[in-house]
């Protein structure tokens, strides 16, 4: 198994196909003879039925190329799962570090959110997500998809925001070219992303006012305004080192230096 995966990764590096895709295909093509075709077929069918195409996500990108393609594409309708449908897929991958499988999934999600197939998302599209409505920071999260007051976000922009939440994997840090810009999911970028949720006026500082606004969003109604005010004061004061009455990004990172940001700001499914 080990040697096979090593082979796979070599093949993948040569052919430029992600290992996952190869693996999944090999899983069927290599193992099939050993298990016996007559027994595998029902098994395969069982998996397809029981686990559904979605649960077999690892295979899913491969499915676009593999033997099960006809069924898949008919189920997909016009929305092909083929990576080629995504514009600029390679540059996006380079920038965000997402695997191809993730990108395809995200592209589907993007299309699903894009109600009337505009090719971009507007705020309204994101506001449609029910769970965001009850997220106290929902509006701010939505806003973070629309930097600098733009009105629409296209797929690269969408993915770029999500890339901040990609888990940090070890290989990223190991063999990264120092000349390249820091990946979007680095600790600094994750922190910066959180910081800009506070810093509404983009002046690089969380003012007392901005802090209060965030607290107000996040704290339940039981807390009185006075309490909030004093908590705000205390919070700013605690982080504020240079005494300007506001929290700069540096101070922000300092106050969080003990935290495991890499884990806190990573979403498991965004491999």
């Amino acid at each position, binding site marked *: 198994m080990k040697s096979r995966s090593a082979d796979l990764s070599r093949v993948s590096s040569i052919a430029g196909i992600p290992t996952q895709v190869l693996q999944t295909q090999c899983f069927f093509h290599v193992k099939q003879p050993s298990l016996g075709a007559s027994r595998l077929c029902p098994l395969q069918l069982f998996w397809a039925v029981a686990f559904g*195409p979605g*649960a077999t*996500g690892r295979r899913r990108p491969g499915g676009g190329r593999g033997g099960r393609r006809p069924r898949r594409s008919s189920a997909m309708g016009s929305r092909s799962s083929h990576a080629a449908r995504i514009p600029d897929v390679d540059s996006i991958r380079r920038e965000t570090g997402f695997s191809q499988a993730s990108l395809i999934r995200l592209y589907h999600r993007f299309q699903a959110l894009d109600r009337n197939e505009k090719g971009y998302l507007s705020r309204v599209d994101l506001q449609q997500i029910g769970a965001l409505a009850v997220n106290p920071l929902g509006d701010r999260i939505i806003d973070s998809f629309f930097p600098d007051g733009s009105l629409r976000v296209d797929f690269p922009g969408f993915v770029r925001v999500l890339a901040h939440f990609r888990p940090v994997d070890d290989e990223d840090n190991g063999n990264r070219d120092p000349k390249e810009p820091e990946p979007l999911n680095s600790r600094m970028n994750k922190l910066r992303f959180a910081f800009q949720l506070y810093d509404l006026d983009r002046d690089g500082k969380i003012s007392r006012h901005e802090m209060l606004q965030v607290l107000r969003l996040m704290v*339940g109604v039981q*807390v009185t305004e006075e309490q909030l005010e004093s908590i705000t004061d205390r919070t700013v*004061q605690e982080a504020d080192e240079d005494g300007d009455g506001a929290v700069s990004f540096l101070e922000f990172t300092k*106050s969080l230096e003990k935290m495991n940001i890499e884990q806190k700001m990573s979403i498991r499914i965004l491999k």
Partner: protein
Amino acid sequence: MGFQLRVPFRPWNWLLLLVALKCSRASSDLNESTNSSAQHDLNVRFAAASFEPAETISVFSLDYDYVQIPYEVTLWILLASLAKIGFHLHPRLPSLVPESCLLIAVGALVGAIIFGTDHKSPPVMDSSIYFLYLLPPIVLEGGYFMPTRPFFENVGSVLWWSGLGALISAFGVGLSLHLVCRVPAFGLGDVTLLQSLLFGSLVSAVDPVAVLAVLEEARVNEPLYMMIFGEALLNDGISVVLYNILIAFTKMHKFEDIEPVDILAGCARFVVVGVGGVFFGVVFGFISAFITRFTENISAIEPLIVFMFSYLSYLVAETLYLSGILAITACAVTMKKYVEENVSQKSYTTIKYFMKMLSSVSETLIFIFMGVSTVGKNHEWNWAFVCFTLAFCQIWRAISVFALFYVSNQFRTFPFSIKDQCIIFYSGVRGAGSFSLAFLLPLSLFPRKKMFVTATLVVIYFTVFIQGITIGPLVRYLDVRKTNKKESINEELHTRLMDHLKAGIEDVCGQWSHYQVRDKFKKFDHKYLRKILIRKNLPKSSIVSLYKKLEVKQAIEMAETGVLSSAGFSVPRPAQRIQETKRLSPEDVKSMRDILTHNMYQVRQRTLSYNKYNLKPQTSEKQAKEILIRRQNTLRESVRKGHSLPWGKPAGTKNIHYLSFPYSDPQPAGRDARVADCTGNSDSDSEFPSSPFYTPPRTGWLQERRGTQEIIPMKSLPRGGKPPSFGSQRKTSRDEHVGGGGRAALRPKPLCHTVHEERDSGEDSEEGASAGGSQWSAEHRPSRGHHRSHSPLLRRK
């Protein structure tokens, strides 16, 4: 436990029937006879009482025997309830110890009392009572409270694991125990293969739901949660089916040999029983959903319909020798979604509570029977058997977990980590199910039943107490992120912010599984099922149904009292304030942190937290309501200023209600004008001008607002690109808002105020989410509809 014990048990049985399960008439013949014999029993009793030669009429007399059974049962349940109250009074105990420990302890206590006082042997359950009355509520509750979406997202893995897992450990334990029994030194030579298989099947019926409450604090991830839940849900069914088939085999084996054909038939039967049960469950689920569609005027019977149909599905399936457990589970899962939308809020609450109540009564009784049979003389302790059972249970559970998840991980997008698998392995807590099945073994077929019961009890006690108590620490140990202790307020705040942020981004990413299957079902559901099963004129989106469940009144109160003056952007105080707060004592800081910890909104949990023994007050719903109301307020205010887009208005949605409103309101122009004035002036909010010729700005404003929905971003203004005038407007209007939560402050200008509300509520209903506004929106709808129809929007469509 011969007939003598069963006879006194009848009246209680009858009582339970009356209270909960009225439709037993329609059930099996057995039940019929049970019922009539109970009647008969009572009649005989009354007859005896009345025909006794009465010498003197005694002023006081005691007839304990008459009430004994229901009396004792009531006392048991009360005792268990009181114990639960005490248990939950302790602040940390419930999160450390599974509640079933408590129930078992109470049961053992009762058993000890009965044993110690040499009381007449208490009524003991028998097979028909267990399967007809005690088991269905437990299963129904599980099925009804199952989180549907995550279940179906992981349905493949859940079925794979809970189905095969039960089979593997049943056969594994059975076969390996059979091997042990062949060792002559242990004195187990008379245990046949079938008997050990049967024992294996009953002892591998796990009930991991009991530990979910403990796991909840550790926030296990959703698929893992679903695995545990799904196992608990389906495992019972599978074990019972296996048990029944093996019992049938054992009976048959008494008279003739089992041929291979019988084994094949048994396997086929296993499948038929399961699938048939599910089929009947689904059918009955749809029927009951359909019926609740028409209960609008007689909502009191809504809960009854739900319970009776679930029970009926169970009974019908049992009549046909199908799996009633799977039937009732499937029925609950099927109907839940539709019933919840059909029935009234109160019925919905009733159903939930009644279901919890019934199941906890059942379970309490079973645990008390267990306690009673624990303390007593009827045990046969065989060291070898007990130890090997315990060991094999663990070994085979481990084997089935790691093997099955190894396979299913190959097909999953997000495989279960070894850590997850360890938790699943460790959550294999046995519960009431195993005990009941062991207890119900027919003595005629199982001469060593006592030994089986003893071994089962040991397994249950071991798993419930040792595993149940240690699983919490284990999960926390495996889960390292729990360890770091927060020190500063900043960390506290930022951490929570990041959690919310992460949750929000997760929502943006959506769930990535079962797109096509789910989409297809959704389409089908919308096209046919909902049309047939759900009352008309019900809101569609899930956020709306959330609203439906929120209590409107409380929302309005909150808005009125102005607690929610979320918009109160106070002007920053002078700097001396900061000076003043510099001298904060550590206690103050600590109390601040506590305030923050307890009052910051919790991150929404994907999986609804399920507690087998309690219905939690829906904190998440309450919180959601609060957030939504606050957001409404902010919106209202921004709408008042007229330069922000309303939240959540679907771009492509057709606004049907624009057209459906009456068009001939007597005084539209005036109203519109006033609205316009208010809009224009609410920011400066000095006086209330009533010039009726102010319409153009209004329409213009509306137009602009419409336009902005797509174009102008909500936060473009704080981002810096805002016109300076907005800033001042914003500030003043905020101030106004602080002044009294919107309504109170506006009292001096009532007319303007009402129109305001009216417009606001229009806003609300547009969003399809009108917790705060729906009440007054109802009154004002016609006129609003009117001025809507006036607006140029209509033409836009």
